[in-house]
């Protein structure tokens, strides 16, 4: 269905090609997963399939890309629209119309479908992605997850034979992600849809994949069956890491498969004298309060985003804030940094109201990295961004630490998602505020970058910092957080040590916990710490 023949893609002003001599064939009805490090060229591979690269990005493409027998050199993207559907990384950039329903109909209108067909498919797509309640809502008023689903619904309504998805679940909470993936799998099974999907959160998608396309850092691409590629890929979900460490054969890709191997391991672990203290324990209750919310209430019009929330944040804590899309996680963070004023109740950071702070007073009290780290960057180069932060040298050192080997004259826009986050983080951290807030920091991050981020945040907390992370990433929460707060409909519904919270809920449990239940271990690192000598 999709065929690459000796394709080399070079962007203008680039020193090396983004894709190098790629030959690849994806047969009809396969779900192929594109994996690779941050910035390795996964998006370029997707864009090349329907000709968006090089038509809209510039650059040159050597070799041949054909989709359903059509050569992308002879067919501009619009002539492929009936065959290929694309959902790009940030769905907000792709919305053409104002309302959900019109957006879903837009592509079909362009294809010239009959009105009755359009009407039927709009209803089907609304149901398939669970958007019927918001069909008449303006797109910009939807939550991130709803926007992502609307973008997918809009493309699916065109009934493409090939679907290209760039990070389709990165903005979704675990339940919504499962729904979207289940819907995709149904389409692959029932309609023979061919799917090419780039995704960093392998733990969510690897079990659905028929093939894994691995984009290496130098632009080379290899592909193979999931079990083969996962055996030695540098990026792997926790369940695979556990399987590799325990030398399970064949390598399990799903929690279910792993559980069938894990009997002996569970027995060994539960036979240990006592569960050793995890590397990070919850902060002792005597440590000082850094920030607190007292009966804080935030309302947008008639919509209550936070409902009389009481929360205390103490020194040395790493708090994960979890919950559905639109539950109030971002509002909580925004009120702690004074971007949103509480309608009622009190918000105090270091004893003061953050809304009243500005300039150095604010940055020395609290720092925040917003959901899109690019929002924080407005200068022309990495060097300028560092120079404009509170402590330029510290910012530069932190950035080199997190994202080594980046040319400081690069434009922040040209950085990969992970490098951009590193830059925003360096800029914010250099101010040295005791309280650090991160909104969905692992969106678009590969596992190695995530590990570096976790290391940095742990060191920060160990030296007396307090960190709040709003996230959908259960693996990150399990790995990093000492305490987990679950928000629903503006209320805090659970607040406790991460280990207790995530093992109690199947929705928030990380893969290792699911494999090893009832043994309360959350990550591969926990297992390694408990059993230093390999099996």
């Amino acid at each position: 269905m999709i065929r690459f023949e000796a394709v080399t893609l070079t962007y203008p002003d680039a020193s090396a090609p983004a894709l190098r001599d790629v030959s690849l064939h994806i047969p009809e009805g396969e779900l192929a997963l594109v994996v690779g490090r941050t910035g390795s060229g996964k998006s370029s591979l997707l864009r090349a399939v329907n000709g968006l690269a090089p038509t809209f990005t510039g650059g040159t493409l050597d070799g041949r890309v054909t989709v359903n027998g059509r050569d992308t050199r002879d067919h501009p993207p619009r002539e492929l629209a009936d065959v290929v559907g694309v959902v790009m990384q940030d769905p907000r950039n792709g919305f053409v119309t104002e309302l959900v329903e019109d957006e879903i109909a837009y592509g079909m209108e362009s294809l010239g479908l009959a009105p009755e067909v359009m009407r039927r498919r709009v209803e089907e797509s609304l149901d398939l992605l669970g958007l019927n309640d918001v069909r008449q809502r303006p797109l910009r008023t939807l939550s991130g997850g709803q926007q992502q689903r609307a973008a997918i619904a809009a493309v699916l309504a065109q009934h493409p034979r090939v679907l290209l998805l760039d990070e389709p679940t990165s903005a979704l909470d675990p339940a919504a992600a499962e729904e979207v993936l289940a819907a995709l799998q149904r389409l692959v099974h029932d309609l023979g849809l061919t799917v090419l999907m780039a995704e960093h959160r392998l733990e969510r998608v690897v079990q659905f994949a028929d093939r894994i396309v691995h984009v290496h850092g130098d632009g080379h691409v290899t592909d193979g069956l999931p079990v083969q590629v996962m055996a030695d890929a540098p990026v792997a979900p926790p369940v695979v890491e556990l399987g590799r460490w325990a030398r399970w054969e064949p390598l399990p890709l799903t929690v279910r498969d792993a559980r069938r191997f894990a009997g002996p391991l569970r027995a060994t672990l539960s036979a240990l004298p006592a569960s050793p203290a995890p590397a990070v324990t919850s902060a002792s209750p005597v440590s000082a309060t850094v920030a607190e919310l007292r009966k804080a209430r935030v309302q947008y019009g008639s919509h209550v985003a936070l409902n009389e929330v009481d929360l205390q944040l103490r020194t040395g804590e790493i708090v994960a804030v979890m919950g559905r899309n639109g539950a109030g996680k971002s509002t909580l963070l925004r009120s702690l940094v004074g971007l949103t004023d509480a309608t009622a109740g009190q918000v105090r950071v270091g004893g003061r109201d953050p809304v009243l702070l500005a300039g150095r007073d604010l940055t020395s009290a609290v720092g925040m990295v917003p959901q899109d780290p690019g929002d924080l960057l407005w200068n022309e180069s990495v060097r300028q961004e560092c120079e404009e932060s509170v402590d330029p040298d510290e910012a530069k050192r932190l950035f080199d630490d997190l994202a080594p080997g980046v040319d400081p004259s690069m434009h922040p826009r040209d950085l990969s998602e992970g490098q951009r986050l590193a830059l925003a983080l360096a800029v914010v951290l250099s101010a040295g505020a005791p309280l650090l807030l991160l909104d969905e920091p692992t969106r678009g991050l590969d596992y190695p970058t995530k590990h570096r981020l976790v290391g940095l945040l742990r060191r920060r907390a160990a030296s007396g910092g307090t960190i709040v992370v709003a996230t959908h990433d259960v693996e990150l929460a399990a790995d990093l957080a000492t305490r987990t707060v679950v928000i629903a409909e503006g209320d805090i519904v659970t607040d406790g040590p991460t280990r207790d919270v995530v093992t109690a809920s199947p929705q928030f449990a990380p893969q290792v916990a699911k494999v090893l239940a009832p043994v309360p271990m959350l990550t591969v690192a926990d297992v390694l710490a408990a059993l230093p000598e390999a099996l």
Partner: protein
Amino acid sequence: MTTQRAARALHPMAWWLWALALAAAASRTLNPLLLGALIGVAALVVAARRTEAPWAASFRAFLILGTVVLGVRLVFEALFGAPIPGTTLFTLPELTLPEWMAGVRLGGDVTVEALVAAFYSGLQLVAILACVGAANALANPTRLLKSVPGALYEVGVAVVVALTLIPSALTHLQLIREARRLRGQPSRGIASVARTATAVLAGALERSLALAAAMDSRGFGRLRPLPAGERRVTAALTLSGLVALLVGGYALLDASTSPLAAAALLALGATLALTGLHRANRRAVRTVYRPDPWRWPETVTAASGSITVAVYTVAAVVMPATMLPTTSPLAWPALPLVPLLATLLAAAPALAAPPVPSTSGAGTSYPVQPPASDEHLPEPSKAVAA
């Protein structure tokens, strides 16, 4: 209205036809009573049938703009207007200008006649603005785009994308303000605006590019291949039609040209342009999802406006003294019965148009027709409204 009618939005084209017809009617008269009636009718219909959408607030903005225009017109008349003999109201100190500026007057006597004449022509502008404002308030711009013929669709999209650029740039500006606050930089003031302007512009451009890529990959602008000769004929037809429409429109608004010639030109232009569009439509593959239907309320709305402009045009020829009342000597303008009835007929959409869909869920019927207008409503529209 005895039975409850289903709420729906009236076809935006009907609103625009109605409003433009009223504006054209306003351009045929300087009679303040008729102009006032036209403004009143526009306001009444807006009050009865506007939605809660953001663009619905624009009528008030247009009225404010009209009032400002009227004020400026009066002040300019007093300061610079050519002297009209009559009752002097007050005298402004007159500036003696050098020889080479002879003909330009600054200050001097201000007569009632001059001010009244200025008021009449100012009121005409207010009435035209009110009609355009009413169309803006009543018709959904994106739905209007849907009824644009396929051949013109690309142009329409360009306009709509350009319009969305402003709100999206504002959102981006807000984000950058927040970012500056988070980084401890001043978020207000000229220096900060200068620093952020490039980032806002770059962001808006980037989003436009991303939008273009998204639209293209969803099939925007797909065309059916047609032979080049046929394309050239289509282009020639459309172009000459548009030129004829333009000239005809100018002739209609210009009171010194024969209305018959104007009407003929308009008809010719419309025929040519529509033929061209029809041929061009064969190239476009686009279809429309849930198009706005054109039913009797649309016909009534468009017809009521057309009848009004027709009556005004004829009246301007038949009774110029009433339609363009003299201000020198000053006289109280007469109220011509037939044009007044025609004006009141233009209020028919307030009843004939279906109730607007309610977004808050409350109130499906609109109890907004003042009894006065109901009584004066001439027979034909009563019949269709019932």
